[in-house]
């Protein structure tokens, strides 16, 4: 049953490309939206579905896919961001051919990400992350501009180095236990006969690869260039979900299923996480380009997720997952908004935007909501996930890191205030007289995402007992 998450998009992808000449532009667009929406719906409804039932023809095949609450959170996020990227792209991509290729590559990316969050094997994880990564390289360069090509090539080289680290880890796993599934590695680590040290090293090397793919400090060099040079729809996809699935999802998965509360892993995560928080936030303050600033802010926010994992407790994993979901929503929202500004001004230079908020009220308001959520201001959803992160760290006895997380939140608020001040608030200059609100393709996803942020935040106290409790991994935690 779960196989369908991978097979159906693959089938649709092949069908779309058999006879695309005859298809009007709306068909691939609709296919992406339907499949993205299906991810959201089935992600929400997964427990009520006959997940383990076999499909008659495919019963001979064993894909070994499994789904838990972590998977559900990701399926919903993937679906939402894919839809937003398709909306934005519909507006921003002008040539017919680029649009068709974009839709097809979006489906490739969807297949890769759906597979990555459902599988349970280290090597298959590498394969599906490469599928996603290859789709991203091509997507960044899809308009063939020189900056985009350069951003894509850098991303490709670092991503390939990351893949080499992951494969070295896999090789060591084969060498020590002759198996690469999550459960086999977990078992061998817990019963601890043979050579657990070598196996731990294998997982550690694999994690270095994930750090590079997730853009954590000190491996973040490729990220701002790739994000800011990509076409608007692609930035939404990359920042919203791709780097989260490729780097951070697997980290959460390993912390939850493989290296359960391992002290050395905790320390590495805490250090890498806090470095990312601080470096990302400080670098964000100095940026004059909106997309580059958002990219550095992503590095900082991913640091929060990683530091929460570093708490090494169940609450830490819940906090990390919830912040991941929130981050996928508000960062996609911010990139959608930067795309709407770009569509009207033709630039993402904040110096040329002064006072654009008055001319583009929807864009200005939703940006404000996303920014407050990112900075952890109540009642937006980001407040709750940051609160959980701080609590998790404090309860795990990592008070210093908890204080760092709080202090860095002020930095986050700082750089977003700088952004709001320079780009959105104030009196619009006369050059902006003719600027109007962006078209519906930008405003609709922005408003939907803003609503999700607000509603999740307001109703968070009720979340635990609602059908949406999977966002907190269904843990009946008391805090």
């Amino acid at each position: 049953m779960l196989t369908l998450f991978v097979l159906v998009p693959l089938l649709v992808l092949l069908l779309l490309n058999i006879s695309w000449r005859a298809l009007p532009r709306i068909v691939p667009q609709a296919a992406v939206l339907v499949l993205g929406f299906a991810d959201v719906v089935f992600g929400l409804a997964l427990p009520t579905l006959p997940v383990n039932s076999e499909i008659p023809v495919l019963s001979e095949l064993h894909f070994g896919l499994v789904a838990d609450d972590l998977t559900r959170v990701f399926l919903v996020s993937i679906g939402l961001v894919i839809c937003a990227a398709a909306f934005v792209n519909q507006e921003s991509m002008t040539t017919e051919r680029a649009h068709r290729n974009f839709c097809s590559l979006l489906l490739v990316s969807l297949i890769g990400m759906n597979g990555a969050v459902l599988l349970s094997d280290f090597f298959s994880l590498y394969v599906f992350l490469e599928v996603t990564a290859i789709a991203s390289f091509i997507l960044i360069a899809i308009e063939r501009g020189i900056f985009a090509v350069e951003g894509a090539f850098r991303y490709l080289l670092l991503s390939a180095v990351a893949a080499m680290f992951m494969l070295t880890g896999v090789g060591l796993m084969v060498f020590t236990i002759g198996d690469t599934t999550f459960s086999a590695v977990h078992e061998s680590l817990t019963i601890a006969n043979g050579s657990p040290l070598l196996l731990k090293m294998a997982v550690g090397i694999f994690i270095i690869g994930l750090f590079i793919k997730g853009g954590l400090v000190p491996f973040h060099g490729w990220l701002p260039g790739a994000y800011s040079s990509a076409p608007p729809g692609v930035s939404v996809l990359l920042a919203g979900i791709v780097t989260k699935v490729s780097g951070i999802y697997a980290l959460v998965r390993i912390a939850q299923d493989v290296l359960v509360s391992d002290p050395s892993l905790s320390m590495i995560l805490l250090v890498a996480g806090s470095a990312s928080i601080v470096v990302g936030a400080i670098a964000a303050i100095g940026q004059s380009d909106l997309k580059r600033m958002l990219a550095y802010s992503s590095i900082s926010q991913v640091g929060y997720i990683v530091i929460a994992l570093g708490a090494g407790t169940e609450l830490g994993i819940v906090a990390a997952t919830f912040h991941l979901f929130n981050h996928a929503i508000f960062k996609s929202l911010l990139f959608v908004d930067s795309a709407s500004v770009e569509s009207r001004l033709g630039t993402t230079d904040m110096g040329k935007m002064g006072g654009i908020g008055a001319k583009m009220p929807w864009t200005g308001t939703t940006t404000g909501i996303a920014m407050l959520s990112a900075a952890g201001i109540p009642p937006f959803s980001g407040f709750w996930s940051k609160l959980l992160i701080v609590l998790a760290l404090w309860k795990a006895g990592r008070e210093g890191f908890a204080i760092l997380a709080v202090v860095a939140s002020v930095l986050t608020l700082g750089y977003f205030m700088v952004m709001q001040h320079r780009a959105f608030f104030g009196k619009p200059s006369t050059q902006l007289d003719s600027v109007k609100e962006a078209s519906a393709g930008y405003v609709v996803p922005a408003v939907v995402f803003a609503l999700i942020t607000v509603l999740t935040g307001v109703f968070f106290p009720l979340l635990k007992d609602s059908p949406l409790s999977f966002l907190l991994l269904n843990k009946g935690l008391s805090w």
Partner: protein
Amino acid sequence: MNDAIVEIAMLVTFVLMALWAVLATKLLRAVVALAATSVLVTLLLFRLDSPLAAVFELSVCAGLVSAIFLGAITLTQPENEAEVAVSAKERIRRYWYLPPLLLLLGVALLQVALPDVPTTAAAADDVRKVLWTSRHLDLLGQITVLVAGAFGVIVLFKEARKNER
């Protein structure tokens, strides 16, 4: 004993070829060295009872990859004679410490004593059986990767038509 000498010779050549690929001044020679490395990997894979992977390595890496590199070099013409001379000088400055580094690392690694492994353990399972019983997901991934590659070719290699609307 004789067998071991053949294997040792192949391993040494493998490292030397890799080094040549790095130190060669002309790009064309680097690609030839890369292909030679690939051929050596193929031979080593045969020695390790992995004929199918060996055939893949030979046809894809030594064949297809070299062809792609040659195509890229012909299309870009990256270096003329003068530039080669300049880059050769710079190359020495950049790479002179690679061989000593490798030598040190090699000597250090050779000190590591590893236990013998019984050869009878080999050939226990068949690659086709593994690929077709437990790694279906990877096959699905391979198909998707190839599709993605096809789009890569369409997007990146096709000349942009000017009068497209």
